[in-house]
Protein backbone atom coordinates (compact mmCIF):
# COMPACT_ATOMS: atom_id res chain seq x y z
CA UNK A 1 0.00 0.00 0.00
CA UNK A 2 0.89 3.64 -0.14
CA UNK A 3 3.29 4.81 2.52
CA UNK A 4 4.66 8.07 3.82
CA UNK A 5 8.01 7.86 5.57
CA UNK A 6 8.52 10.35 8.35
CA UNK A 7 11.86 11.05 9.99
CA UNK A 8 13.30 11.30 12.54
CA UNK A 9 11.28 9.27 15.02
CA UNK A 10 12.51 11.45 17.89
CA UNK A 11 14.35 14.73 18.16
CA UNK A 12 15.81 16.03 21.40
CA UNK A 13 16.56 19.75 21.40
CA UNK A 14 17.49 22.40 23.89
CA UNK A 15 14.85 25.04 24.30
CA UNK A 16 15.60 27.72 21.75
CA UNK A 17 17.07 25.35 19.19
CA UNK A 18 15.37 24.58 15.90
CA UNK A 19 13.44 21.42 15.03
CA UNK A 20 12.68 19.85 11.67
CA UNK A 21 10.68 16.80 10.63
CA UNK A 22 10.46 15.38 7.13
CA UNK A 23 7.94 13.31 5.23
CA UNK A 24 8.71 11.49 2.02
CA UNK A 25 6.66 9.51 -0.46
CA UNK A 26 7.72 7.47 -3.49
CA UNK A 27 4.64 8.66 -5.35
CA UNK A 28 3.22 12.08 -6.08
CA UNK A 29 0.84 13.33 -3.43
CA UNK A 30 -2.31 15.34 -4.02
CA UNK A 31 -1.79 17.24 -0.82
CA UNK A 32 -0.32 16.88 2.63
CA UNK A 33 -1.52 17.89 6.06
CA UNK A 34 0.33 18.37 9.33
CA UNK A 35 -1.02 17.60 12.79
CA UNK A 36 0.30 18.06 16.31
CA UNK A 37 -0.45 15.72 19.18
CA UNK A 38 0.38 16.96 22.65
CA UNK A 39 1.27 14.34 25.27
CA UNK A 40 -1.95 12.65 26.39
CA UNK A 41 -3.95 14.48 23.74
CA UNK A 42 -5.31 13.84 20.30
CA UNK A 43 -4.01 15.02 16.93
CA UNK A 44 -4.91 18.57 16.05
CA UNK A 45 -4.79 19.93 12.51
CA UNK A 46 -2.09 22.52 11.83
CA UNK A 47 -2.10 23.14 8.09
CA UNK A 48 -2.68 21.75 4.61
CA UNK A 49 -0.37 22.13 1.63
CA UNK A 50 -1.66 21.60 -1.88
CA UNK A 51 0.53 23.33 -4.43
CA UNK A 52 3.92 22.28 -5.73
CA UNK A 53 6.66 24.19 -3.91
CA UNK A 54 4.20 25.72 -1.48
CA UNK A 55 5.57 27.35 1.68
CA UNK A 56 3.34 28.41 4.54
CA UNK A 57 4.23 29.98 7.85
CA UNK A 58 2.50 30.04 11.20
CA UNK A 59 4.54 32.17 13.57
CA UNK A 60 7.65 30.07 14.29
CA UNK A 61 6.46 27.13 12.17
CA UNK A 62 7.35 26.85 8.48
CA UNK A 63 5.77 24.19 6.29
CA UNK A 64 7.06 23.26 2.86
CA UNK A 65 5.75 21.04 0.06
CA UNK A 66 8.34 19.85 -2.43
CA UNK A 67 8.36 20.81 -6.08
CA UNK A 68 7.60 17.23 -7.08
CA UNK A 69 4.93 16.93 -4.37
CA UNK A 70 6.67 13.88 -2.96
CA UNK A 71 8.08 15.39 0.21
CA UNK A 72 7.25 17.89 2.86
CA UNK A 73 8.85 19.38 5.94
CA UNK A 74 7.90 21.19 9.11
CA UNK A 75 10.48 23.46 10.67
CA UNK A 76 10.12 25.10 14.06
CA UNK A 77 12.42 28.01 14.85
CA UNK A 78 13.55 28.60 18.42
CA UNK A 79 11.56 25.84 20.08
CA UNK A 80 9.59 26.51 23.24
CA UNK A 81 8.23 24.12 25.84
CA UNK A 82 4.78 24.57 24.35
CA UNK A 83 6.05 22.94 21.15
CA UNK A 84 6.52 19.58 22.88
CA UNK A 85 4.51 16.79 21.30
CA UNK A 86 4.43 14.52 18.29
CA UNK A 87 4.11 15.97 14.81
CA UNK A 88 2.43 13.87 12.14
CA UNK A 89 2.15 14.37 8.44
CA UNK A 90 -0.86 12.92 6.64
CA UNK A 91 -1.00 12.69 2.89
CA UNK A 92 -3.70 12.07 0.40
CA UNK A 93 -3.53 10.99 -3.18
CA UNK A 94 -6.02 9.57 -5.58
CA UNK A 95 -4.64 6.04 -5.32
CA UNK A 96 -5.13 5.88 -1.57
CA UNK A 97 -8.78 4.86 -1.76
CA UNK A 98 -9.67 8.16 -0.15
CA UNK A 99 -7.76 7.38 2.99
CA UNK A 100 -5.31 9.71 4.63
CA UNK A 101 -1.91 8.05 4.75
CA UNK A 102 -0.22 8.92 8.03
CA UNK A 103 3.45 9.25 8.76
CA UNK A 104 4.72 7.56 11.92
CA UNK A 105 5.26 10.90 13.64
CA UNK A 106 8.25 12.77 15.03
CA UNK A 107 8.35 13.32 18.75
CA UNK A 108 9.82 16.65 19.82
CA UNK A 109 11.47 16.44 23.22
CA UNK A 110 12.89 19.48 24.98
CA UNK A 111 15.98 18.65 27.02
CA UNK A 112 15.75 19.78 30.65
Amino acid sequence: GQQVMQIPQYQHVQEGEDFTTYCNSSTTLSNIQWYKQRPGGHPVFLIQLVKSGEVKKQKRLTFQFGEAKKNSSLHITATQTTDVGTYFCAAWHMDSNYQLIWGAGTKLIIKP
Partner: protein
Amino acid sequence: GAGVSQSPSNKVTEKGKDVELRCDPISGHTALYWYRQSLGQGLEFLIYFQGNSAPDKSGLPSDRFSAERTGGSVSTLTIQRTQQEDSAVYLCASSFLRPGQGETFFGQGTRLTVV
Protein backbone atom coordinates in the same frame (compact mmCIF):
# COMPACT_ATOMS: atom_id res chain seq x y z
CA GLY B 1 -22.05 18.99 18.62
CA ALA B 2 -19.08 21.25 19.10
CA GLY B 3 -16.55 18.53 18.49
CA VAL B 4 -16.11 14.81 18.02
CA SER B 5 -17.33 13.05 21.13
CA GLN B 6 -16.20 9.60 22.21
CA SER B 7 -17.38 7.43 25.04
CA PRO B 8 -16.32 6.04 27.33
CA SER B 9 -13.08 7.93 27.84
CA ASN B 10 -11.59 4.97 29.66
CA LYS B 11 -12.56 1.32 29.61
CA VAL B 12 -11.02 -1.53 31.56
CA THR B 13 -12.25 -4.95 30.57
CA GLU B 14 -11.36 -8.53 31.24
CA LYS B 15 -9.77 -10.62 28.55
CA GLY B 16 -12.43 -12.40 26.52
CA LYS B 17 -15.18 -9.83 27.10
CA ASP B 18 -16.77 -7.78 24.34
CA VAL B 19 -16.55 -3.98 24.33
CA GLU B 20 -18.36 -1.25 22.44
CA LEU B 21 -16.82 2.13 21.81
CA ARG B 22 -18.98 5.01 20.67
CA CYS B 23 -18.22 7.99 18.47
CA ASP B 24 -20.46 10.97 17.83
CA PRO B 25 -18.94 12.97 14.96
CA ILE B 26 -19.35 16.64 14.25
CA SER B 27 -22.80 17.32 12.86
CA GLY B 28 -22.80 17.35 9.07
CA HIS B 29 -19.50 15.53 8.68
CA THR B 30 -19.92 12.76 6.14
CA ALA B 31 -16.55 11.09 6.66
CA LEU B 32 -15.79 9.16 9.85
CA TYR B 33 -12.67 7.20 10.73
CA TRP B 34 -11.50 4.93 13.50
CA TYR B 35 -7.83 4.72 14.38
CA ARG B 36 -5.91 2.84 17.01
CA GLN B 37 -2.86 4.25 18.76
CA SER B 38 -0.65 2.21 21.02
CA LEU B 39 1.48 4.02 23.59
CA GLY B 40 4.08 6.17 21.89
CA GLN B 41 3.16 4.90 18.46
CA GLY B 42 1.58 6.36 15.35
CA LEU B 43 -1.97 6.07 14.10
CA GLU B 44 -3.17 2.71 12.86
CA PHE B 45 -6.09 3.01 10.45
CA LEU B 46 -9.00 0.71 11.25
CA ILE B 47 -12.07 1.68 9.24
CA TYR B 48 -13.48 4.56 7.20
CA PHE B 49 -17.08 5.53 6.52
CA GLN B 50 -18.01 8.02 3.80
CA GLY B 51 -21.64 9.00 3.50
CA ASN B 52 -23.79 6.11 2.37
CA SER B 53 -20.94 4.27 0.64
CA ALA B 54 -19.77 0.87 1.79
CA PRO B 55 -17.16 1.35 4.52
CA ASP B 56 -13.48 0.70 3.92
CA LYS B 57 -12.72 -2.03 6.44
CA SER B 58 -9.24 -2.78 5.17
CA GLY B 59 -7.55 -1.76 8.42
CA LEU B 60 -9.49 -3.97 10.80
CA PRO B 61 -6.89 -6.31 12.35
CA SER B 62 -9.13 -9.34 12.76
CA ASP B 63 -12.72 -10.50 12.50
CA ARG B 64 -13.13 -9.73 16.19
CA PHE B 65 -13.34 -6.08 15.19
CA SER B 66 -16.41 -4.58 13.57
CA ALA B 67 -17.93 -1.15 13.24
CA GLU B 68 -21.16 0.35 12.13
CA ARG B 69 -22.44 3.81 11.51
CA THR B 70 -26.13 4.38 11.97
CA GLY B 71 -28.00 7.05 10.06
CA GLY B 72 -24.78 8.50 8.77
CA SER B 73 -23.94 9.86 12.19
CA VAL B 74 -23.04 7.94 15.34
CA SER B 75 -20.60 5.07 14.98
CA THR B 76 -19.87 2.12 17.22
CA LEU B 77 -16.67 0.09 17.17
CA THR B 78 -17.11 -3.36 18.65
CA ILE B 79 -14.30 -5.62 19.75
CA GLN B 80 -15.33 -9.17 20.56
CA ARG B 81 -13.41 -11.52 22.81
CA THR B 82 -10.89 -8.85 23.73
CA GLN B 83 -7.22 -9.74 23.98
CA GLN B 84 -4.45 -7.96 25.86
CA GLU B 85 -2.93 -6.78 22.57
CA ASP B 86 -6.13 -4.83 21.95
CA SER B 87 -5.12 -2.43 24.72
CA ALA B 88 -4.63 0.99 23.12
CA VAL B 89 -6.27 4.36 22.63
CA TYR B 90 -9.01 4.20 20.04
CA LEU B 91 -9.46 7.50 18.24
CA CYS B 92 -12.43 8.52 16.17
CA ALA B 93 -12.21 11.35 13.68
CA SER B 94 -14.53 13.05 11.25
CA SER B 95 -14.30 15.47 8.37
CA PHE B 96 -16.74 17.40 6.24
CA LEU B 97 -15.09 16.56 2.98
CA ARG B 98 -13.26 13.57 1.66
CA PRO B 99 -9.91 12.78 3.31
CA GLY B 100 -7.21 15.29 2.55
CA GLN B 101 -9.62 17.91 1.31
CA GLY B 102 -9.98 19.57 4.64
CA GLU B 103 -9.28 19.33 8.31
CA THR B 104 -9.86 16.08 10.12
CA PHE B 105 -11.16 16.51 13.65
CA PHE B 106 -10.32 13.97 16.31
CA GLY B 107 -12.13 12.99 19.46
CA GLN B 108 -10.36 12.65 22.78
CA GLY B 109 -10.17 8.91 22.35
CA THR B 110 -11.15 5.88 24.40
CA ARG B 111 -8.33 4.30 26.36
CA LEU B 112 -8.98 0.58 26.39
CA THR B 113 -7.17 -1.62 28.85
CA VAL B 114 -7.63 -5.38 28.66
CA VAL B 115 -6.59 -7.17 31.84
